[in-house]
């Protein structure tokens, strides 16, 4: 009798476990069953934040769950990204991943490495544009570089902070062209552009979107953008490559989740991002901000991040930043 009671108990336990595990597998199949959080490692209102919020709206429709966008600024994105890295790899905590992820290790900004994440997809490309005052004595990159070669160390180029992507872009141009610039760091791209308009510096290498107003106001001119191909938003502006300087560099943004996120969850997220980036709303917003919609799926983005890590580590180790 005693034994049969134990046996029944055993059956109940086994049955219960089966049911529970069954349920949990049902849960996994039903991802997402509660709200998802996207962590933006920068302040509210910036380009990264706005991009994330608009993508979140599109993903929300595709996934049928609420997506919260939370800002965790600080440490060149290190604070927010570290938090996501430490989160459970279940697809409910996503990080906006900026280009800075590939520099953290080399610049010792934090202990983040680019392979700490599984990458869902790329959203945007943020082209760097060499911009000067409209009355400057140079109209092409070639003339600009010649001028700089003739006046070594005198041409001042503004960027958005020491070690920022735009600082690196100017240093890269320096490396390729052999000219020597005087790099002036500002607290963000907008103050650098303002200083350029006031004639306090000679050029900026910041995001094309930041200088558009100045160009329209007839105060600035863009000499070239540092992308592979011309930007459809400004078809008249040549690329650096066309002008004879092999300089392709820029910022980008994508989404990532902690390493070890299940494949089926990744698939769903990736599909929702693809859908969100294809929407007209997203495209309009991105092009108005002077950025380029550049969707890459999980596989391509992962490869891209790996390539960029090698590219930037190589570039940064040759540069003398901070000066």
């Amino acid at each position: 009798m005693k034994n049969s009671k134990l046996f029944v108990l055993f059956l109940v336990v086994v049955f219960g476990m089966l049911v529970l595990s069954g349920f949990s597998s049902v849960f996994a199949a039903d991802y997402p069953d509660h709200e998802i959080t996207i962590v933006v490692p920068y302040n509210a209102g910036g380009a990264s934040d706005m991009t994330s919020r608009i993508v979140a709206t599109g993903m929300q429709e595709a996934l049928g769950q609420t997506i919260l966008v939370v800002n965790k600024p600080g440490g060149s994105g290190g604070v927010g990204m570290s938090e996501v890295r430490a989160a459970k790899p279940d697809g409910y905590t996503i990080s906006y991943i900026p280009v800075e992820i590939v520099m953290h290790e080399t610049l010792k900004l934090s202990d983040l490495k680019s392979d700490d994440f599984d990458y869902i997809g790329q959203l945007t490309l943020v082209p760097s544009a060499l911009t000067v005052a409209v009355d400057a004595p140079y109209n092409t990159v070639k003339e600009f570089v010649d001028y700089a070669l003739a006046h070594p160390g005198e041409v001042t180029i503004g960027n958005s902070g020491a070690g920022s992507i735009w600082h690196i872009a100017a240093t890269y141009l320096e490396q390729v062209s052999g000219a020597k610039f005087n790099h002036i760091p500002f607290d963000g791209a907008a103050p650098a552009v303002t200083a350029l308009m006031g004639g306090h510096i000679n050029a900026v290498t910041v995001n094309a979107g930041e200088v558009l107003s100045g160009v329209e106001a007839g105060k600035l001119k863009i000499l070239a953008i540092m992308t592979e191909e011309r930007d459809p938003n400004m078809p008249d502006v040549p690329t650096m490559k066309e002008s004879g300087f092999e300089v392709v560099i820029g910022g980008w943004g994508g989404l990532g989740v902690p390493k070890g996120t299940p494949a089926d969850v990744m698939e769903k997220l990736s599909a929702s991002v693809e859908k969100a980036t294809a929407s007209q709303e997203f495209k309009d917003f991105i092009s108005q901000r002077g950025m380029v919609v550049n969707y890459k799926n999980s596989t391509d983005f992962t490869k891209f991040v790996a390539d960029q890590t090698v590219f930037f580590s190589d570039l940064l180790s040759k540069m003398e930043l901070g000066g």
Partner: protein
Amino acid sequence: MIESLGSLMQGLAVAISPMNILYCFIGCAVGMLVGVLPGIGPTEATALLIPLTYGMSPVSAIIMLCGIYYGGMYGGTITSVLINTPGEAASVVTCLDGYPLAKQGRAGVALKVAAYGSFVGGILSIFGLVLLAPPLADWALKFGPSEMFALLVFGMCMVVGLMGKSLIRGLVSIFIGLLLALVGMDTVSGAVRFTLGSNQLVGGLSIVTICMGLFGLSEILVGMENLSQTNKVSSVASSKLRKGEWGPTIGSIIRGSFLGFFMGLIPGTSSAIPALISYSMEKRLSKHPEKFGTGIPEGVAGPETANNSYVGGAMIPLFTLGIPCSPTIAILMGAFMLHGLTPGPTLFIENPIVVWGTIASMFVGNVILLIMNVPLANVWAKVAQIPNKMLYPVVLIVAILGAYTVSNSMFEVGIMLVCGVIGYLLKKLDIPMAPIALVFVLSEMMERSILQSIKINKGLSGLYNSPICMTLLILSVIILIASLFAEYSNKKSRFLTSDDE
């Protein structure tokens, strides 16, 4: 000019359509609310509400977002006056006389004077915006790193005027402010300083967190000592100005309007600078400078006017050149772009309705805020009557919540608590708090601008080659000498006559 006024009338027609008035009202109300809650300032509120404006027409969206901006400027005053907790840097100086007024049961006076001042400042600066926009915008561009540095030196000298009774204690306070500003990554060299290895400190400390700790929390801690005593404001005094207070108050409002407007034009400044300069200026011009800090209406009126007229001034570089002068304006610029409008001179030509509608809505918004605030002043004033036992827990919760929302982390709450304890100790030592907060805001910009100037000019030549720069620096020296002299003669006379201190 006549043309501008004609366009303004057209804009007014847009702005007073019922829907736009409603959006303007919503914007102002939300702005007031976030101004009252520390932590979320107008910058964050504007950013968070931008996605809600997708479905609206561009004019309505911009009208609402602008409402949040200047509504927030009004709201920040309320907490400064009532609980001595500035919600943003611009309201720090409002605490100096606003809170003593509230302690005397005259919170209503402080709030009303601030509301009238903000209204006048707002309206005058919009007139400036309409009439003087293009030539001024070009002039303002002359402010490069060197000129900015000189302006900040000037601002720093003004801080000396806020030091309270003792120069030494004031200097201690200034150095604490400088020390706090050094924490984090230096944008010029990229070097990371005083972070104690913490990732969260790389971005530096937040002014909001520091203010809530130093001002709000320390006030609670000091108040806890006499919680058992019922030293409450017995009654709410009349919220009318007394005889003899009208003159200086009106004067300070008019001076504040012009000051704020011109400061707004200069890229890279913050609304804390005109507020600070206005306060120091009023104190210097006053017939009874010793009363500043004890609760006098003109000490509230001047700075509050200046930080509101700053808004109108700051719109000029945005509309004429596409330059965002302050973080909030940068977010507004994002909102324009989101609705397919690029701020800049072409905007006036391509979308006059949007530009003039927005400008006209600022008139409407200021009227709405005046109507909302003047009757409310008496209601708010009653808050000062709530017994501390009930008020303190609420203030504490609001402060913790506010600190948390700065970067959505408990880390900021921790910093706020530490600042609160430091603030308590400083209060016991009679060291003034306002210079800490203001120097913190100014010195960060000051360090950056001098390093930029040195780097651009490969030396200090930028400083003496610029007439604007030299003028400001000479003025600074004069002010510094004058205040040191005043301090000295003051001490001497006090030494001879005073026996009550």
